[in-house]
């Protein structure tokens, strides 16, 4: 039945995915294993996204299904030691920009991929990024921004991190009007066009 759950998620059959999850749990399947099946399905969806076979609707649908599954599973986990995290990441939409949909997808996918994500929300001033990095000890920062208006706040945030002595922190930027030229302009370490790029960059940077 595990393969059925994986297939249901990949094929975007939401009702089936929830139904099978409950059946698996009722029949005594380890809740951690159920989550792991979900994760397997998400890996496939991620691959499909990279190949241009899945798109935003599928990522959002998958997110909805995974949230529902983990909401069902979590009460059954008796304070089990959570799986070891790959690394810490601080993410936010930069100051002056309030777009959150793409950022939320990136956070969700990174979380699922095993990163500990601190989501600072939208309209985040540089000082707040610095503070969060100091507090969490994160070595990766993700800056999101949809507008051309985000160029300078991104640049300012990268500079603020450097000024605060956080020189070993790597910064990735992403958003609708972000390209190689803006990566150079902001002195970020990398840029990405989508959530999958964020995941591969993060894995690369933690040596995964």
């Amino acid at each position, binding site marked *: 039945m595990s393969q059925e759950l994986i297939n249901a998620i990949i094929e*975007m059959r*939401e009702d089936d995915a929830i139904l099978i999850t409950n059946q698996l749990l009722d029949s005594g399947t380890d809740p951690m294993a159920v989550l792991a099946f979900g994760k397997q399905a998400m890996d496939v969806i991620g691959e499909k996204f990279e190949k*241009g*076979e*899945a*798109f*935003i*609707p599928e990522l*959002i*649908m998958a997110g*909805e299904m995974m949230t529902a599954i983990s909401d069902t599973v979590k009460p059954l986990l008796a304070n089990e030691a959570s799986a070891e995290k790959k690394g810490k990441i601080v993410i936010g939409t930069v100051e*002056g*920009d*309030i*777009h*959150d*949909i793409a950022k939320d997808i990136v956070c969700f996918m990174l979380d699922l991929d095993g990163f500990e994500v601190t989501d600072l929300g939208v309209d985040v001033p540089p000082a707040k990024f610095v503070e969060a990095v100091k507090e969490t000890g994160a070595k990766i920062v993700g800056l999101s921004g*949809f*507008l*051309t*208006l985000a*160029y*300078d706040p991104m640049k300012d945030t990268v500079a603020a991190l450097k000024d605060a002595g956080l020189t070993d922190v790597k910064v990735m930027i992403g958003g*609708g*009007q*972000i*390209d190689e*030229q*803006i990566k*150079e*302009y902001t002195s970020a370490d990398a840029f990405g*066009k*989508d959530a999958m790029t964020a995941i591969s960059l993060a894995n690369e940077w933690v040596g995964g």
Partner: protein
Amino acid sequence: MSEKKPTPVSVFPDNWVAMSIDEKYDFFKGVMLSTEDKAFVNAEVAEKYKRRMTRLYDAVELKEPDRVPTLLLSEGYIARRAGYSQADYFYNTENIRQAAIKFHEDFPEMEYASTVLPYPGEAFDLLGIKMLRWPGGDRPDALPDNTSWQYVEGEYMPASDYDELIQNPEGYVFRKWFPSVFENLKALAAFPSLFAPMEPATVAAFLAPLAGGPIRDALNLLLEAADKALPALIPAALAYNQIITQFGSPRFYGGLTFAPFDIIGDTMRGTKGVMLDMYRNPDKLMAACEAVVPATIKFAVDGAYANKRPFVLIPLHKGADGFMSEEQFTQFYWPSFKKSMEGMIEAGLIPVPFVEGSYNNRLDILSDWDVPKGKVVFGFDQTDMKTAKEKLGDKFAIFGNVSGSLFATGTPEEMDAYTKDLLESCAPGGGFMLGSGSPIEFTTPEVLRTYLGATKKYGVS
């Protein structure tokens, strides 16, 4: 005050309804090219206007103009360089008029009118609009003065309302969407049926609920907002008039509309809602897109006919590459969008869809579209222009793709190299205009001048 009599060229012919698409198109073209009904400061400016308009129409009609026209979405930059803030677009629109005039004075090579698009902030305040956040004013959630307005994502229409929207789009919007988005118009939810007064016996029953109380207050508020809006919009009209008559830079957009899917996705179901609906409520989503097609045509036609300018800008949001698959685009986005544009063409108008993001995976679908030649102009942001030209060049004119990042951070040399390459690959054969890929917020005068001068170097046939 005596009003100048309109010249015959701009009066709709009596047989308008019976006229063919081409006749309607030609009527508007005649109005656009005419210099008679505009108070140009001198004959030289009138000539300049005519030359630029002819150039534009040559490109639209897939001919090679004497020189490739240069378009620019300049709205953010013009205020910034004049020292005005984004908040002025909402609360000091006279400043925006001055900024636009200053911009045209400093850049006389601007071939076409820059965008002067004010928003009536005080009216927004009165209505209590929830679908966006904007700069200025004294609301607690005001954005900083120098930040442009942004959507506030939300499900302003729950999925359970689809049937109501589909059955009666305008009624639904008035009684449900207005109260959902305009905090201070909640009372419109109880507005009586417009069919109520159709029999003498029920006229009174229609009027009674409007006589006093919350509905009356809501209607009064709506009128008050309209009264606040008008003065905020007048500076833009004055600016355009001056730009045309003093600088000879034509304004060609007469209307603005949106693709049906974007209307549903932007401010009704929200991005997340509409994306999920492709799986959760596919049939209703498609039916809703169909249901709003007449409204998208109507507000395009209303604007363009009132202004007598046939070009209708359609900024496109959610059908771009990455947002959905080609199959989903074909199923959910394209049919109603196509129908909407065909309705505009039927009315003698020229839809100008502008694709935000990229459309590389949509070009084949556009190229298969059975549409009369030269009746649509497509603008692109990040789409590959060479391929777009190859695939669409025999159908409609294209423009765009000079990126906001190049304007913001590039050097004049980089701008020169980019526009040279773009013009050399896309200009030959006609049907091409130079255009920016996004509204320009940041640039330098040197980079901008390089852009505006590019067609003189590389776009002369």
